[in-house]
């Protein structure tokens, strides 16, 4: 299971939207293989009868009341933007389609 190919790493980088260099892919392929081999240890005890825990402290909190409160001003919303037109964020042309 821990055999990871450079193609796989390149695919993962694409899913994660990181333009890794060839050297990085090569380096990560080796490292990921080693790390995965170490972490696969979990399968030794993760038997079907064990219930997974996704939240460490079980809680039952009240949900949020439907009352408008938090809202940023448009200046605040745009304040960190690399590019905007005064009301909206500007991005370069999109290759893919809407989901």
């Amino acid at each position, binding site marked *: 299971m821990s055999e990871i190919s450079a193609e796989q790493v390149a695919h993962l980088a694409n899913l994660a939207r990181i333009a890794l260099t060839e050297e990085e892919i090569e380096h990560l392929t080796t490292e990921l293989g080693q790390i995965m081999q170490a972490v696969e240890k979990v399968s030794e005890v993760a038997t079907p009868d064990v219930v997974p825990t996704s939240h460490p402290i079980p809680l039952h909190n009240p949900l949020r009341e439907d009352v408008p409160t938090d809202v940023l001003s448009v200046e605040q919303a745009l304040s960190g933007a690399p590019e905007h037109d005064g009301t909206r964020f500007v991005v370069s*042309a999109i290759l893919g389609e809407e989901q």
Partner: protein
Amino acid sequence: MARAALMDFDEALERFEPVIGLEVHVELNTRTKMFSSAPNPANDEFHGAEPNTLVAPVDMGLPGSLPAVNATAVRYSISLGLALGCGIAPSSRFARKNYFYPDLGKNYQISQYDEPIAFEGSVEVELENGRTFEVAIERAHMEEDAGKLTHVGSTGRIHGAEYSLVDYNRAGVPLVEIVTKPIVGAGADAPALARAYVATIRDIVLSLGISEARMERGNLRCDANVSLRPKGQEKFGTRTETKNVNSMRSVERAVRYEIQRQAAILADGGTITQETRHWHEDTGTTSPGRPKSDADDYRYFPEPDLLPVEPDPAVIEELRAALPEPPAARRRRLKAEWGFTDLEFQDVANGGLLNEVAATVDAGASPAAARKWWTGELTRIANAQGADPAGLAEPAHVAELAALVDEGILTDRLARQVLEGVVAGEGSPREIVDARGLAVVSDDGALISAIDEALAAQPDVLAKIRDGKVQAAGAVIGAVMKAMQGKADAARVRELVLERAAADS
């Protein structure tokens, strides 16, 4: 792009059986968003706000921000699930759907994946032709909407755009996605069923009051899955998913188009590509989006920022008890109560005017009068304006108008003028009658003096009447009506003219 070959619809249905599946997204009209307390633009109160003015940190994925589930959105979702006949999960969970897109502030969508809040239901759907179907619901789950992209460039479409603008006002709007099980057996009615199903969902959410349900605003959106299988074959064919079909009429057209397109390919020995397709309203066609691929690896996992949703069973029962009557049952009841023929009832229902007629009847009008005004004059005005007749006038005003006619204060013709004033927002019918002085002149003295004037101008008329040519009275009646600016009862004028002829002889 070459235009796809289409098979004749009837021929396609002779050779293939269509299987459809529908995914409807409903934007809830809560006051705040699904996961933030920013105002919700899918609520009429906040609709039309300037870009990026309805945004809290989590809606634009600011570092450090966290989602917080809206209690009302959960209640609405439970009500909708119950109205769809679904079971409500004692514990359901949010999950992250991971994909990069600039309209998605966090680059993941918080949705529900393996544990939806509502599951396994069914809805009775009545077609325009009166046929009814039970549509099985697989699930209804809560999620958040994405922001809005505007593509700027030569075409205004995504391809060929030079850059795009992003507005996160819509990001985080509460959505319920309702997914049907595959619908088999509709045959040639499949396109009409798809339309009627969406109309039924619209009726349900409107009766619950949980969505503004305006398709033109995207409050209600439909993705239509269509596949064909050769008649007699058990296994489903490969399906396509046509995205974001945003009117009732388009839903029907898109399903019909896909049936014809796929039939042509299959009959030609070709295969259907499993893909997303886009509906083009202008050409009435669909075109391929990207094929399904491993880029669709959404890496779902339970949303660690949120706890499971565990509604109080007592609240569920409270919401169940408060459910409105299901649309199909309500239709049957109203039709019986109103005493309409099948055709009369379909005229109302297909015009989307059930609620308006019912409210008008509740306000005191007779069912016949309510039907007449809504499907007649109001629909005519709406068509002329390119608007929806529902919402053109207050049902109470229509009822008042009908009462004025019944009381003899207005003739039909005057009533139509008053109605135009109502639509133009001039006030209630009585106010308009007063303001414009439109009431029927019932004072015989005023009518007689007008008749005298008309007779003086056309002295031969009385003689003709006495000769038995009663239709000659028409010329005088017309002149009197003109002189009274239409505010006279033509029948009374005629009576008076005939009386006069008899008296003078």
